[in-house]
């Protein structure tokens, strides 16, 4: 059931292919290019720091930008009505959307990781930490996006959130600058950055960011599951 749904989602993007190509590859890679071009005035660690920030920012944009909008579209009453008698459950449709956007953002993540490996050297990368760090980042941001999208249930209203939330999460996190300002620790993205940076040898692997990120992932997963598994999906004030 998942495969046709993922195929449907990917095929559904055909008419936006130029827009997607620019937004998913040209613009992010242009940013990456500028970071690399700036390498002569910075240490390789500085470059890796920025590129690791780029990985998380890409995931924030993909999930909290696009996925939230797509999920909110599925939760519109008229679309829920249509899917109510089609074979896939809403939870399966949403899972397929999460997988689709994970696949779409994957090239950026892989290219950015390759840049980090180039500057940091393979020896400093802890693969055993990197895999769970990426997994937690995908899951935490993905489930948060699903929860928000399902709760809003209206792509027009969701647009207001998706225009502001990723921006806030990125600006008030040490993605592209170094800071230990306390307010940044209210932002879950700060901890995800710490997890990824500790896995690529840019930070010491402390337990707090990991514990908080895992806890938030569990909480968002429960909330997302509740939203997509509800029996009577229109049984809420609207």
């Amino acid at each position, binding site marked *: 059931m998942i495969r046709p749904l993922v195929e449907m989602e990917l095929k*559904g993007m055909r*008419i936006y292919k130029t827009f997607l190509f620019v937004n998913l590859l040209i613009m992010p890679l242009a940013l990456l290019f500028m970071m690399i071009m700036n390498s002569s005035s910075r240490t390789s660690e500085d470059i890796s720091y920025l590129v690791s920030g780029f990985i998380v920012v890409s995931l924030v944009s993909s999930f909290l930008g696009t996925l939230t909008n797509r999920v909110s579209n599925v939760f519109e009453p008229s679309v829920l009505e249509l899917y109510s008698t089609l074979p896939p459950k809403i939870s399966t449709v949403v899972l397929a959307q999460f997988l689709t956007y994970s696949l779409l953002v994957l090239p950026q993540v892989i290219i950015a990781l390759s840049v980090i490996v180039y500057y940091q050297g393979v020896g400093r990368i802890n693969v055993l930490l990197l895999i769970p760090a990426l997994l937690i980042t995908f899951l935490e941001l993905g489930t948060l996006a699903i929860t928000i999208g399902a709760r809003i249930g209206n792509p027009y209203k969701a647009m207001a959130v998706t225009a502001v939330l990723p921006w806030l999460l990125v600006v008030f996190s040490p993605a592209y600058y170094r800071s230990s300002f306390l307010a940044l620790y209210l932002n879950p993205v700060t901890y995800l950055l710490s997890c990824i940076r500790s896995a690529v040898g840019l930070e010491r692997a402390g337990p707090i960011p990991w514990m908080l990120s895992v806890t938030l992932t569990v909480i968002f997963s429960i909330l997302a599951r509740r939203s997509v598994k509800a029996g009577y999906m229109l049984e809420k004030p609207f």
Partner: protein
Amino acid sequence: MNVIEIENLTKIYPDGTKANDGISISVRKNEIVGIIGPNGAGKTTLIRQLLGLLKPTEGSIRVMGKNILKKPGVIKETLAYVPQYPLSFPSLTVEEVLEYVIRMRDGNVSPTERRKKISEVLKLLGLERASRFFGYQLSGGMKKSLLLAMALVQELPLLVLDEPTSMVDIVTKHRLWEVIRNSNREGILLASHDMNEVKALCDRVYLILQGKVVASGTPGEIASMVKMPTEVRLIPEREIPPGVLPKEHRKRGDLYELTFNTLEDALKTVDVIVKSVGVSYLEIESPSFENLVINLIGRNAE
């Protein structure tokens, strides 16, 4: 056996609005049943409960003998639905949408069989030439036809249609009616504003007003519930004897304008005139089904 059985269904929203109030509706095997009522009558709430999207406050809904509150899986297994809104998948072609629906319903259907099913349903609905059109290229009528195609291609026993021909041109409308009529389902429940549609398709009709069923029966029975004046204009071949004409009549040249309290009275008099003096021109303005329903709704609202 009733393939759909809604018993004493009541739905009260959290804000206290009673959208359905003790509604009982049944669809017998091989029957097409219509639900009619004005906007806000409670039709959408009723359908959303039938689709398992809203929880009834009271009452029960049985689909193919199974209570959907206890076995919600029966909805997806037996029921196909055509929504009111002309939804579409903007960047998938008509053919692709149907292909995915078949694949999701049964992953084991071979590509050849899939193509055959798609081609059949496209032909049936007159969508062959639009098979490669993307959703965003479809007209309102084509979108509605595609939604019906999506429902039919799944080959499920029951069909629930929510205003299936709204926003559709008259030619497409008649084509869709024919497809629905000949769809060979075990039961069809149709909610509509279009009285002609209900009259053309339904074996029985339920009239809903303010969340309650206020009348039910065949379209003919509904029509007989209200007596409405009927006007007849005719030119007889010879002079009409005075005793035959009703009290309310006018003569303008050769043309007689007669007014009757009911359609039945009008037809009886016309029959007498035809047999006694013959008629060279005849025009009967009888109450439309639409007018009858408006009248019924008006009476109930009072």
